């Protein structure tokens, strides 16, 4: 049975990591989590980013956060990727599978997944 005492081990493990990542997140993944996003399936998308970023060892450079309604509800789930010195990338109609590809190709590989962006859908 899990107990709260196990958190102590997580705390010890995180100690070194936390110092390392103070203000070091260069990329920010923002998932829209208002009524429109949630109804369209944003929760599994968010979870895929949280898990995938950690598993790919990107926790130090990528922060995954949530926001309210972005204003383009018909394209939900919407995910925005912000990177210092670069233009914002808006991914639309996201799924957990597409999130995986964004993590490997874009966040890790530095290559925007053009076919998932709003520009590709709005044509």
């Amino acid at each position, binding site marked *: 049975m899990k107990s709260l005492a*196990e958190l102590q081990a*997580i*705390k010890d493990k995180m100690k070194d990591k936390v110092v390392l990542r103070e203000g070091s997140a260069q990329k920010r993944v923002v998932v829209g989590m208002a*009524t429109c996003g949630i*109804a369209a399936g944003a929760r599994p998308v968010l*979870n895929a980013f949280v898990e995938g970023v950690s598993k790919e060892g990107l926790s130090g450079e990528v922060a995954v*956060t*949530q926001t309210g309604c972005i204003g383009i*509800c018909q394209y939900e789930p919407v995910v925005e990727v912000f990177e210092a010195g670069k233009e914002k990338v808006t991914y639309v109609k996201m799924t957990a599978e597409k999130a995986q590809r964004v993590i490997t190709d874009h966040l890790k590989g530095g290559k925007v997944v053009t076919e998932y962006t709003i520009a590709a859908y709005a044509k």
Partner: protein
Amino acid sequence: MKELSLNILDIAENSVKAKAPLTQILLTETEDLLTIEIIDNGCGMTGDVVKRVTDPFYTTRTTRKVGLGIPFFKMEAEQTGGTFEIESKAEAEYPEDHGTIIKATFHKDHIDFIPLGDVVSTVTTLIQGHPDSDFLFRHAFPTGTASLDTREIRNELGGGVSLAEYEVIKWIEEYLKEQYQSI
């Protein structure tokens, strides 16, 4: 919404937005009834606003003129023959004792009952998105209860580790799932 747990996520987001230090999500199941209560100590609403929140054409959002979160939840409870209540005390009128209480009951055997779905995922999503807010979650069945209090977790972790860290979120998920298995 495909799952009631998504409505819970949506409604609890309002509590966080109302700057509630603590949001309680209390689920109680009997043989035929599911009761969902979402109780926060946020800024609350005045009587006038409370009257309007179940109206789809009232919203706090600035990007659009409709707000469907609360009207959806109310409809989903009432379509099972259940009930929906909302009470709120605005901080301006009740500086010591403010916040909002939403309570909905659902008849589980009704054909229009939407399944609760993955409520653990709702809890972890809320914590990941709002690591500085506190959440008390309790899901009671006649045979046992699953519960989680982020204040206890925060206490164990001390100030240095964010509750949004993947390791912490993963631990919370497993901690809750394990409790469900033993009910």
